[in-house]
């Protein structure tokens, strides 16, 4: 595997590879990065490692464009977060930023140039109504107005229907826990809230604790149904693991213990396994074996390897191994039964299928 890894994967393992690049190599690298939606991140990494000197002028057009795009993006996300603070000021609703917005506002170096579409927030369930009302008064409206959709989200899911700002069109996903209520894994979200960390000098906005950030990133990626952004999710995990393992004493033991406490052994197992296999994330030997119950074994483990090693590659046809589309489809089906048990899922899918499609 390491020898025939796609060019983009090799790049993130070792960015120095570009120093021997020919123009044709840049062509392929940029296309794979565009497909995986990580071109700005690649651009920042090249700059940080002082490797831009080897890029031809025509390549710089795209690298500079990607950097400008993500800087503009960063500015607008920070403004949205500012507006969220404004909306919730004085309402005693601590708001926890998740994923992309959290990495950005916490200024984590690996996430420079990360682009994402929605801002994800976590709010305690009993404060959800207050938060929704305050956001509504400040222009964020619920986007799924259909009664069935509303009920689907509110009764079964772990988040409100997406809220869209009426003027700026920004989309917020407001979660109250990190997995659907109907999922088989049941992490206790009060434990997450107990450990939240304030973002520098901002009394309203928090992030999860570093350990919980890793676990949430893993949970999100390995419950995901659409893998266009799978590789990007894996890069997040790799970045989080490298950064926190260097900063936190006894990181691996604490991480594995916390996964057991939150009922998240399985996503952590996948995260460590594939981050190491694909991006060569340094993980002390024997750590993965210490993860407790619930991890796949034997044939299941082999099948999951076959699926994830395909689906987590960059989303570009040049990276697709034999069976990649089938693997993505099977994981899409899997994501649905992870989300709800069959006795709820089947009626839900029937209902969705029979509903007349809205005219756009």
């Amino acid at each position, binding site marked *: 595997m390491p020898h025939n890894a796609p060019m983009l994967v090799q790049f993130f393992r070792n960015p120095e590879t570009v120093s021997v690049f*020919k*123009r*044709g190599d*840049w*062509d392929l690298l940029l*296309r794979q990065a*565009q*497909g995986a939606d990580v071109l700005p991140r690649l651009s920042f990494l090249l700059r940080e490692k002082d490797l831009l000197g080897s890029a*031809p002028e*025509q*390549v*710089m*057009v*795209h690298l*500079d*464009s*990607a950097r*400008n*795009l993500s*800087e*503009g*993006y960063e*500015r*607008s996300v920070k403004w949205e977060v500012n507006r969220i603070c404004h909306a919730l000021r004085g309402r005693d609703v601590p708001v926890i930023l998740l994923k992309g917005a959290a990495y950005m506002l916490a200024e984590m170096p690996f996430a420079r140039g990360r682009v994402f579409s929605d801002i994800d927030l976590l709010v305690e369930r009993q404060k959800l109504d207050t938060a929704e009302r305050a956001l509504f008064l400040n222009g964020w409206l619920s986007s799924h107005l259909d009664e069935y959709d509303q009920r689907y989200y509110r009764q079964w899911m772990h988040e409100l229907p997406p809220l869209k700002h009426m003027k700026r069109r920004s989309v917020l996903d407001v979660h109250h826990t990190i997995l659907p209520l109907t999922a088989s894994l049941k992490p206790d979200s009060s434990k997450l809230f107990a450990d939240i960390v304030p973002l520098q000098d901002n009394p309203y906005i928090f992030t999860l604790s570093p350990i919980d950030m890793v676990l949430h990133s893993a949970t999100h990626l390995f419950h995901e149904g659409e893998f266009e952004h799978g590789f990007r999710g894996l890069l997040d995990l790799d970045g989080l693991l490298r950064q926190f393992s260097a900063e936190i004493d006894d990181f691996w033991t604490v991480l594995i213990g916390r996964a057991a406490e939150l009922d998240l052994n399985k996503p952590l197992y996948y995260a460590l396994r594939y981050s190491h296999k694909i991006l060569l994330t340094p993980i002390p030997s024997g750590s993965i074996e210490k993860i407790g119950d619930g991890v796949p074994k034997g044939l299941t483990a082999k099948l999951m390897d076959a699926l994830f090693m395909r689906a987590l590659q960059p989303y*570009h*046809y040049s990276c697709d191994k034999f069976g990649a589309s089938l693997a993505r489809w099977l994981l899409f089906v899997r994501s649905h039964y992870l989300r709800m048990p069959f006795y709820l899922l089947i009626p839900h899918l029937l209902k969705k299928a029979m509903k007349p499609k809205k005219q756009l």
Partner: protein
Amino acid sequence: MYADYSVEPESDFFDFHISLEKPMGVRRWVRPQVQFYVDRLTPFKPLPLDQAFPMLEWGLNWCVSTRINNQLTIHAAVVEKNGYALILPGDPGSGKSTLCAALVNSGWRLLSDELTMVSLADGRIFPLPRPVSLKNESIKVIQRFSPDAVISRISHDTSKGSVAHMRVPTEHVDRSTETAIPGWVVFPKYIAGSPLTLEPLSKGQACIRLIENSFNYSILSEKGFEAVTKVIDSSDCFDFSYSVLDDAISEFDDLAALKSGESQNAT
């Protein structure tokens, strides 16, 4: 349309990997369609096969306006004379493409009929000369105005009505790396039967309207603001309405003569 452009079979780096293909399945044969691919992804819904060429042009515009952010991109036609660029922003129906096509056939060099690319470093305009899009009545207008212009077959019933494209003169293609200094920002308006008017516009007003016509101003923010102000600083700005193409062209020729006179006096 593209006969004068160089083909680079030896090149191994491309800005965009695009193709137009007939989709698989029934629609390959029954009322055939065409699909635009960027590196095998499809940003648009397929169109009737007859609209393949307009789709290529729209697709290329989409590629540039969504992926190129190392320059400020403005939705405006732009032509050049004596080194100065005449920038013509305008909403659909303002007649900017017609005006652009007529200017290109009257001694002005085409930089672009749709995308004005402003360098963030020095505010100069980078050319992107591609076939000029003509819609509905303006196809006939240009045929009449310059009978020698090479105009493509017309695709009817597109989302923008009937669409044809005008070939770019060879010399303009050959000079496609020659940048230009912004000289004028003119907001055109075609009003049937109206007399020609050219009203000076304050720099502040022109600046705001140029920003409104920009694709990536909000992304570039401060850098974008600096680029816009460079354009506005070096340009004379006008509101312009016209109904007769010949009059419009001679008005712009006068502006160009005035400017080169000024710059000669200055040296």
